[in-house]
């Protein structure tokens, strides 16, 4: 067992009425890990277990060597960017980012400067007073990333962050994510359905099928694999 691992899932079992999922894996710190698999394979459940939205029926989740048992989502060293509904639509952009610093919105002048800086870093300088409904899908995801930046959590979970974006925006967001990762040196887990995201961003790949992690490979090795039908389908090799 590596106590410095970013994430360790040790014999984690999750049971639903009709399905059972089992996760066992160790994720090293500092990389970008693509989490891939068909719909219903358990990717979102894996995220929910790490983020604290689901408690495992059995097994243990450790982040940076510490057990997460009984810890509420906000108490975990994790930031989450969802596929949608990342922003409170009735609050302006700066306030949405401000929640990353203080959940009660007690913000000092220095905090406000940090918010402006984070928005600047994601390319949204001057967007602080805008309301989310006036932003494009890509801009909204950037705001969510800005909030993750000010939170300074060592683990960032991205649940299909580019799903609603057109190809041009996807490329721009991938570049931004890579830059932010290089600056922050955090660990990123990113759910994706696109092999292009895997090729462009990931250092390694966790591949799930029917509630199990069936592959956890460095990206080069994963892209070469031809031995598993589900992976072949994902990579378009069939």
């Amino acid at each position, binding site marked *: 067992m590596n106590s410095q691992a970013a994430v360790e899932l040790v014999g984690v079992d999750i049971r639903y009425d009709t399905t059972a999922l089992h996760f066992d894996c160790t994720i090293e710190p500092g990389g970008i890990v693509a989490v891939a698999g068909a719909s219903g394979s358990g990717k979102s459940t894996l995220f929910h277990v790490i983020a*604290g939205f689901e408690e495992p029926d059995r097994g243990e989740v450790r982040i940076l060597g510490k057990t997460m048992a009984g810890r509420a989502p906000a*108490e975990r060293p994790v*930031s989450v960017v969802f596929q949608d509904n990342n922003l409170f639509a009735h609050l302006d952009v700066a306030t949405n980012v401000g929640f990353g610093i203080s959940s009660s919105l007690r913000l000092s002048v220095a905090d406000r400067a940090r918010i402006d800086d984070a928005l600047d870093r994601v390319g949204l300088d001057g967007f602080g007073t805008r309301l989310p409904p006036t932003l494009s899908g890509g801009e909204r995801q950037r705001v969510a990333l800005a909030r993750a930046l000010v939170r300074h959590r060592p683990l960032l979970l991205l649940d299909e962050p580019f799903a609603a974006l057109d190809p041009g925006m996807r490329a721009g967001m991938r570049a931004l994510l890579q830059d932010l990762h290089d600056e922050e040196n955090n660990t990123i887990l990113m759910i994706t359905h696109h092999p292009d995201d895997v090729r462009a961003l990931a250092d390694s790949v966790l591949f799930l099928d029917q509630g199990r992690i069936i592959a956890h490979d460095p990206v080069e090795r994963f892209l070469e694999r031809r031995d598993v039908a589900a992976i072949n389908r994902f990579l378009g090799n069939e």
Partner: protein
Amino acid sequence: MFAPAENRITITAGAVGLGGILLFVGLAIAALLLQSGDFGNGVLFDAYIWRVTRFTLLQASLSTLLSVALAIPVARALARRTAFPGRVWVLRIMALPLGLPVLVGALGLIEIWGRQGVLNTALAELGLQQPVSIYGLFGILLAHVFFNMPLVARLFLAGLERIPSEYWRTAANLGMPPGALFRFVEWPVLRGLLPGAAGLVFMLCATSFTLVLTLGGGPAASTIEVAIYQALRFDFDPPRAIALSALQIVMTGALLLALARVATEPAQSATTGRASRRYDARTGLSRASDAGWILFSLLFIGAPLMAVLGSGLRADLVKLAGDPSVHRALITSIVIAVLSALLCVGVAAAMIRAAGTVVARRHAPTLARAFASTVTASTSLVLLVPPVVLGAGWFLLLRPFGDVARFAPAIVVAINALMALPFVHRILAPAMATHAARTDRLTASLGIHGLHRLRWIDLPPLRKPLLMAFSFAMALSLGDLGAVALFGSQDMVTLPWLLYSRMGSYRTTDAAGLALFLGLLCLIFTMLGTAGDRRLPEGRKT
């Protein structure tokens, strides 16, 4: 919700709300059961009770038949005439009876159909000697149709407007005659809505109190609810009130079960506002027929409303405004309405949140799931145990403790809150569920909870449904006569009770002024709550 401590608080708050409702209703029923010792004397099989039951079912059946039969052509006409000047006002006028106190509507109908009303005056001038009498079965049917026909028409219109525009184009392309169009396009939609709409109207008419009390005209035209009131308030015959209450619960229980089986359509009384272009609307006959039905609905609903306005304006409003008894009644009504609306919205919100929290758990134990189902079902408990039955139970329960009027404010507030609960639940539950789905995970991951969550995340987007629920609950309470009829006294007079008293003592000018005042007050609250929102709660007690 994903924070265990917050979950516990949420579920506890919901459990307290549920416990309060069950206790309030349970104690009332227990009081009725405990004092039912005289059942052995055959009270239940008394001829009077069966006459009242028969009349209740008869008037409800006829009211339903008439409301539905008239609503179909009105809805079809409005669906076919998608754009004419004032269409939106016709729809608004059709929504008015929903927000109008029942007593005010009844007064408006008397102004038109009563012995001295517009219609009888016109008939007398034409030489007709026998006036139309609004009291008795005719008046009850008329009033029930006045309140329920627009409701059913709006339900049907919403259904017809949901028909895809391609259907009308295809029908036009195929050259379908009007009969075939009705049979193959319109009727299947209306047929789907019919059982739910008819069941709802039947339920509302079978449990009608204020209208029957006002327009019944005597024991020959009395429903079970009015008979309970008379048994307690005038005859002081608790065994009879208990027998009637038991009958009422059995009847409403059976009706609710039947309604649950037949009502397949989701409750949406509002029109979508998206009207398809109709190609069958161009013939002269259809134009004339549609104009006739729209004019009929406008006159039928609008005339009593205009009469209330006209006679109200003719009243000595300045004198009324300076009358201390009106001041007291107004203050009493507003205090009761505010308290009952606060109680209702607070309890509903707590119970909805608690049920949502329990259901969101992956491995919710059977007990927790039962709790969630009970929470949802309990919001409609007042439909099973109507206000007059609740009032009768509490009346009997509190009698040993002295003058029941002392407890009137608390009981009336609680009954009014329970009365509004089904509607408030229907307004808040979908809004709160959507809000929770959008924000629960995000707030949990950011650690926003407690008052901060309430202030920053929950209240701003939920303000509109909360306001709508609050104002609708207030309007219901302001216009209610049922609860206060049993418990009201000289010390506790509400505006509807004052209005009813003035009507009863033939101070009709005062009554007209008060009706205008009360009607405007309730409509303002209803409109405040529904401003910009097309969804209106469907149906209410008359």
